[in-house]
């Protein structure tokens, strides 16, 4: 089945994008649609280009800024993530990420550096973001920086997959940095996806291959996007209660949900929540797979056992 599905993989948003469609004749139209989504997301939500809508808001010194609808949509997704996780996925971690050393596109972040000097404190809080959809403006207090890294890729993947299925009329899988969204008619047996620590690893990387038919599959990991400062290993998933990299109770968490955004919210929050993530995910009724640093695996909900 999957022999008939030809993935197209390319660089985008500082990571890897993969596009698969069920109708090979629709591939170029689907790619064109995806490219438009990616350009729009980058122009709206990047914190690594000064002319993005997000960076204009971050630099506005507390004044409201007129922005495009995409940034407003993306911020509302991030605010919903914060509300649903009691603030464990908080977009006001921008300053914390900078202080941890993630202050530029990750490809250019130095792998090693001097020890960090910082204060353990709560990030400003998602409720300080003021979105006025009618006026088309966003305002954050002076000194607060918003980062949409936790949810924007998943948001874009959902938007692209659903858009391609609707506009081009075929089944579509869009993966952005390992955040996978599918829409439209699935291939026989579903979309086979390898769940592993690093989305950029090869097809033989250790993990489990599962098939999904709808919604999204996301994975968050403390094993990638890491860097060294002094004796400390830092990663990109910030605990908003401390402004520090979340303790690595879990090396990798994957989840399946009704959308890629919801799956991503679950996995990011699970990394931050640590041990309590098991009960939280169980209560939500989500299928999830959690891997400890020693490689042992916990399965939650309907996450299947692997084929031996």
């Amino acid at each position, binding site marked *: 089945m*999957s*022999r008939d*599905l030809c*993935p197209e993989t390319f660089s985008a948003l500082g*990571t*890897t994008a993969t596009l*698969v469609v069920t109708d090979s004749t629709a591939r170029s139209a689907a790619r064109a649609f995806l490219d*438009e*989504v990616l350009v*729009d997301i980058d122009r709206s939500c990047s914190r690594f280009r000064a002319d993005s809508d997000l960076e204009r808001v971050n630099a506005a010194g507390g004044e409201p800024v007129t922005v495009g*609808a995409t940034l407003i*949509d993306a911020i509302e997704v991030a*605010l*919903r993530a914060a*509300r649903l996780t009691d603030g464990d996925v908080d977009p006001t971690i921008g300053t914390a990420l900078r202080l941890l050393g993630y202050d530029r596109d990750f490809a250019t972040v130095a792998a090693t550096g001097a020890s960090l000097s910082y204060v353990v404190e709560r990030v400003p*809080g*998602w*409720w*300080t973001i003021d979105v006025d*959809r*009618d006026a088309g403006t966003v305002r954050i207090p002076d000194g607060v920086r918003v980062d949409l890294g936790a949810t924007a890729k998943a*948001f874009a993947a*959902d938007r692209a997959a*659903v*858009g391609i299925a609707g506009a081009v009329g075929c089944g579509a*899988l869009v*993966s952005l*940095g390992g*955040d*996978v969204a599918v829409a439209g008619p699935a291939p026989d047996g*579903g979309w*086979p*996806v*390898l769940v592993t620590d*690093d*989305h*950029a690893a090869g*097809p033989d990387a250790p993990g489990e*291959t*599962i*098939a*999904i038919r*709808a*919604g999204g599959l*996301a*994975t968050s*990991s403390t094993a*990638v*996007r890491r860097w060294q400062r002094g004796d400390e290993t830092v990663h990109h998933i910030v605990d908003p209660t401390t402004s520090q990299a979340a303790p690595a109770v879990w090396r*990798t968490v*994957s989840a*399946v*949900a*009704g*959308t890629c955004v919801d799956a991503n919210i679950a996995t990011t929050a699970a990394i931050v929540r640590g041990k309590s993530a098991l009960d939280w995910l169980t209560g*939500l009724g*989500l*299928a999830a797979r959690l891997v400890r640093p020693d490689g042992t695996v916990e399965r939650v*909900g309907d996450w299947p056992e692997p*084929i031996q």
Partner: protein
Amino acid sequence: MTAGAANRDSGLRRVARMTRWLVAAAIAAVGVLSAVVAQALPGSSGSTATPSPGSGTVGVAPATTPPAASPSPTSPPVTSDPSLQPAPPPIPTPHHSVARSGGS
């Protein structure tokens, strides 16, 4: 006019007065309730999802914008959102993967 007719007309006037008061009270009650509901459930002008890039609202729950009133700078407002939505359970598959989900 007979005494009976006078009594009837007087009764009709009382009924008319009571009806006017009831209508006024009902209008006032609707207004008060509308204000209470509007404050408790702030709305938004969400756009309609379309298959055009950059214009949809895919992945966005019914937008619940932060309260219009200035929020406290130190604590989150209390709002309600639809919970994270489950999907059909994944199934193990022997097929080769077409994509990888991992950290990035």
